[in-house]
C-alpha cells in the first residue's frame, strides 16, 4: 500500500479530502510564514525586545492587542461549551468541536506570543511562584494557564477519536471517559474563562492613572471586567461561524448546516446587544464622570487621524448597532451576506476595542505638557504575529483533514 493510499486511512470516516500533494503545498505556504516568524522570534530572544517597534511610551503594542483579540475571539470555545454541555442546547454539538479547536489555537497562540512579549522569558514561572494577588495580570496568568489545560483536556478526546488512534483501546477509553466528564470541564472552562476574559478587561479598568482606560466598578472588578466578558462571548460564536464558513469556502464542502451557524450568530447577536447596552452606559459614565473628574474632556481623548473619533464611531456604532440589527432580525440573518457581514463587523468591533484599550490608553498624554505619540508595529512583531496565524492555520488544517470535527459533514456532502 503506497503512502498516499495509507494516508487516506487516517481521514475521518466517510469523507473525502484534497490530494496529499495539494495539502502539502498548502502546508508549505503556512510553514514558510511560520519559519519567518521563527526567525523573528530568534532575533527577539537573542537580542531582546528592542528589535520590535515598541518603546517607552508603547510598552504594549501589537502583541498585546493580538493576544486580547484572539482570546476574545476564541471565546467561542467556552461559551459554546457552556451552552452545549450545561445549558444543553443540543444543536451546538455540530459545531462545538470546531469551537474547541479554535479556542485551543487562540489560547496556545496567545501563550506563545506572551513568552516573547515578556522581557525575561526564563523567569516566566515567577508568575506562579511569586504571584501578586492584587494584580489583574496574575488573575490572567493563572486563569489562562488553567483554561489552556482545560482546553487541552477538551481537545484530547477529539484527537483520540481520530480513526486510527481510536483503534488503540487505551486511547479509545480515554476519549470515551473524557466525553463523559466533559460537562464538568465545560463548566470549569466557563468559570475560568469568564474570569480571565474579565480580568483582561480589568487589567485596563484598574489603571486609575490612565483616564482613557480607568473605570469604576463592582467590588474589585472595574466595569471593563464585565464588558470584556460580554464582548468576548458576543464575538466568540461569530468568529467560530466565520472560521467555519472560511473552511467551507476553501474546501468546497459544506461542514455544518446554515441553521447551526444561524443559531450561533443569533446567540452572538443577542450577547452583542446586551454588551452594546452596557458599553453605551459605560461610555456615557466615562464621558460625564470619569473624564471631568480627571480634568479632561471627551475631545481630548482623540488626536489626529490615527487616534481619531472615527475609530470610536466605528467600534460603537458600525460594529455594534449594525451587527445587532443584522443578527437579531430573522429575515436579515437568514441571508448569508447579512449574517457573515454582521459577524465580520462584530469581530472587527471587538478587535478595535482591544486595540484602543491597549494602544490609545497609553498614547494619551496624561501630563499636560506631554504629547501624543504614535506607534507602528515593525517587521518583528508582524512576523511573529503572522507566525501564530500560520500556526493556527496548520493546526486547523491538520485537524480538519484527520479529525472528525464536523458530525454533519458526511450527511451534508452526500
Amino acid at each position, binding site marked *: 500500500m503506497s503512502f498516499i493510499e495509507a494516508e487516506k486511512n487516517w481521514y475521518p470516516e466517510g469523507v473525502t479530502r484534497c490530494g496529499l500533494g495539494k495539502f502539502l503545498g498548502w502546508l508549505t505556504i503556512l510553514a514558510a510564514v511560520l519559519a519567518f516568524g521563527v526567525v523573528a522570534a530568534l532575533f527577539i530572544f537573542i*537580542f*531582546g*525586545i*528592542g528589535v520590535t517597534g*515598541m*518603546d*517607552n*511610551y*508603547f*510598552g*504594549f503594542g501589537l502583541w498585546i492587542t493580538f493576544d486580547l483579540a484572539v482570546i476574545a475571539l476564541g471565546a467561542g470555545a467556552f461559551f459554546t461549551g457552556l451552552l452545549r454541555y450545561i445549558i444543553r442546547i443540543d444543536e451546538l454539538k455540530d459545531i462545538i468541536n470546531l469551537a474547541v479547536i479554535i479556542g485551543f489555537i487562540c489560547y496556545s497562540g496567545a501563550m506563545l506570543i506572551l513568552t516573547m*512579549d*515578556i*522581557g*525575561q522569558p526564563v*523567569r*516566566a514561572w*515567577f*508568575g506562579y511562584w*511569586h*504571584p*501578586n494577588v*492584587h*494584580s*489583574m*495580570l*496574575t488573575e490572567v*496568568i493563572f486563569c489562562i494557564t488553567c483554561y489552556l489545560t482545560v482546553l487541552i483536556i477538551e481537545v484530547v478526546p477529539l484527537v483520540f477519536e481520530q480513526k486510527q488512534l481510536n483503534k488503540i483501546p487505551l486511547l479509545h477509553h480515554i476519549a470515551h471517559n473524557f466525553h463523559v466528564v466533559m460537562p464538568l470541564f465545560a463548566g470549569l472552562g466557563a468559570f475560568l474563562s469568564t474570569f480571565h476574559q474579565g480580568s483582561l478587561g480589568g*487589567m485596563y479598568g*484598574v*489603571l*486609575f*492613572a*490612565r*483616564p482613557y482606560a480607568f473605570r469604576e466598578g463592582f467590588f474589585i472588578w472595574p466595569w471593563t471586567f464585565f464588558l470584556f466578558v460580554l464582548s468576548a462571548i458576543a464575538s466568540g460564536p461569530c468568529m467560530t461561524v466565520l472560521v467555519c464558513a472560511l473552511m467551507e469556502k476553501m474546501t468546497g464542502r459544506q461542514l455544518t448546516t446554515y441553521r447551526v451557524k444561524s443559531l450561533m450568530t443569533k446567540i452572538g447577536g443577542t450577547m452583542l446587544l446586551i454588551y452594546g447596552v452596557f458599553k453605551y452606559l459605560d461610555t456615557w459614565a466615562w464621558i460625564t464622570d470619569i473624564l*471631568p*473628574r*480627571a*480634568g*479632561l*474632556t471627551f475631545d*481630548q481623548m482623540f488626536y489626529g487621524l490615527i487616534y481619531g473619533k472615527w475609530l470610536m464611531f466605528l467600534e460603537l456604532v458600525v460594529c455594534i448597532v449594525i451587527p445587532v440589527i443584522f443578527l437579531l432580525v430573522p429575515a436579515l440573518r437568514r441571508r448569508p451576506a447579512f449574517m457573515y457581514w454582521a459577524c465580520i463587523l462584530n469581530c472587527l468591533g471587538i478587535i478595535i476595542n482591544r486595540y484602543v484599550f491597549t494602544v490609545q*490608553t*497609553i498614547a494619551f498624554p*496624561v*501630563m*499636560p*505638557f*506631554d504629547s501624543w*505619540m504614535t506607534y507602528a508595529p515593525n517587521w518583528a512583531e508582524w512576523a511573529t504575529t503572522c507566525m501564530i496565524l500560520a500556526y493556527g492555520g496548520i493546526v486547523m488544517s491538520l485537524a480538519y483533514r484527520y479529525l472528525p470535527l464536523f458530525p454533519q459533514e458526511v450527511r451534508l456532502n452526500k
Partner: protein
Amino acid sequence: MSAAHQEFATKWGLVIDIDKCTGCGACMVACQTENNIAPEKDASNKLRTLTWMNVYELKNGKEFPQAEVAFLPRPCMQCGNPSCVPVCPVVATDKNEDGGIVSQIYPRCIGCRYCMAACPYHSRYFGWFDPVWPEGMEKTITPFTSTRPRGVVEKCHFCHHRWNQAKDAARIAGTDPNNLPDGAYTPACVEVCPTGAMAFGDLKNPKHKVYELSRSKYAFRLLERLNTDPQVYYMTKRDWVRRQGDNYLPNEKA
C-alpha cells in the same frame, strides 16, 4: 490594592523649584552615571532612552514675545498610592519600606511592562537591549546600583543606596539611623544641581527643609487629581506652569 495610601514614619520627598531650573541636564547625567545607565550612541530617539530623571520643556503656548519657557525635571514620583505597584504580577515593585520609596527589583521583574502602562508620568523605563558600555568604560560602573540586563523595567529610586549608606554611617558613628539629620541623605540629582533647584528630605520631619517647602502655597504635585499622591513636589510662582501640573477643564482654576 495593597499599596493604597500606605503611611510610613518617614516619607522621603523631593521638592523641585521649576522657577530655578535652567534645564542644563546635570541631574540627568549624574543620575545616569550614579545608577549605571550605559551611554547610548543614538539617544535622540527619546522613546528608547533610559532617563530615570528626565527634563521636560514646558511652554506657555503663547506667541513671541509673550512666550515663556520652563523646565520640569521628572524623577519617579514615588507615589503614595502608586498605580504601578498593584498591577505588577510578580511583586517586582512594591511600596513597602519605611520612607515610601517605590522599589523596583530587577532580578524579580519578568519584563511584562504592565507597570509602564499604568504610570502616567512615564517614570518607568524598559531595557530594550542589553546595556553596552564602550570598551573600558565599564570600569566606571558604580557599586551603588546593580547593573540590569535587558528585558526588565527600571526607574528612579531616589538613589536609595545613599540612604543605605547614610544609615550605615550613622550606625558606625553611633547615631540613630532612623532619624537622619537633614542633608544626610541626598540623591545624586539634588547634590549636583548647579542652581539648587531641588531639595530633598523627610516630608514628615519638621526639621527637614522639605517639610516647609512642600507645604508652601507655591507647591503642587503632578496629576494630583488622579489620586496617585506623589512624594515629589514642584514649586512655581507662575500660574501657567502650575496649570500644566494637572489637567483642568476650561472653567476650572488651577
